């Protein structure tokens, strides 16, 4: 077996990213879409950390920022979801078709 290099991690991250994109594009449940976004962010993180192995720690610092961002995104996203659910009684993203209610 070949030794594990950066490329291995990059390929893993790319696959994870694609999975996330598929999730966002095809699912209708808002919760799962948000989770898919987390997958995408994680794929980015994996890339950053893998690169930080080659080119210094900046990648890791950025990964931490990305995690912070993910936390903020999840909080706001889920807050919107709850507000949405309270009004429409559904978590189907296709139903989000009004600008105002």
């Amino acid at each position, binding site marked *: 077996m070949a030794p594990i290099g*950066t490329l291995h991690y990059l390929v893993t991250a790319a696959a994870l990213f694609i999975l996330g994109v598929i999730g966002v594009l095809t699912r209708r449940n808002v919760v799962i879409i948000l989770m898919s976004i987390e997958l995408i962010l994680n794929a980015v993180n994996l890339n950053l950390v893998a690169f930080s192995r080659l080119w210094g720690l900046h990648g890791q610092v950025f990964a931490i920022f990305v995690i912070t961002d993910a936390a903020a995104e999840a909080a706001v996203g889920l807050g919107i979801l709850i507000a949405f659910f309270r009004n429409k009684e559904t978590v189907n993203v296709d139903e989000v078709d009004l600008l105002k209610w």
Partner: protein
Amino acid sequence: MQPVATTFFFYFLAGLTLLSGVFVITRKNPVHSALALIFGLLAQAGLYLMLYAPFVAGVQIILYAGGIMVLFLFVIMLVNIERSQREEQFNKQWLVGLLAAIALGGLFVMVYVKGKALFPYPIAQPLENSNTQQIGVMLYGQYMFAFEIASLLLLVAIIGAVVMAKKRI
């Protein structure tokens, strides 16, 4: 650690990550999705450890698996999931989405094949024990401004989430 173990653990953790990703986007029940995502995140923390990024791994566990996922589970329980399960799971443009994703994947493959030389096998580096400390120095030195912005962002997110989710403010 021996190279064999490294290889094994990489494939194991990477496989777990991808498998859980697949489960996340295919499960009907959001709780199962969330469970899969948790395992994926933990596996990814393992991958970070293998990349000598213990601090990121720790943050991943404490924030992602322990914090954000609890938030997700909470919300899933609050919204009526049984109903959403009965609905159609995939939207009408799933084929287009799939095509777009495959195109994206093709792009990645192309980039990696063309730029393989850019990503050399990392030279065996010594164990970086003070890694965490350097990250701290960087966060509070070079990236001070970004760090403060991030804290502001979190504050805004807290307020935003409260405003959104609360019934009567």
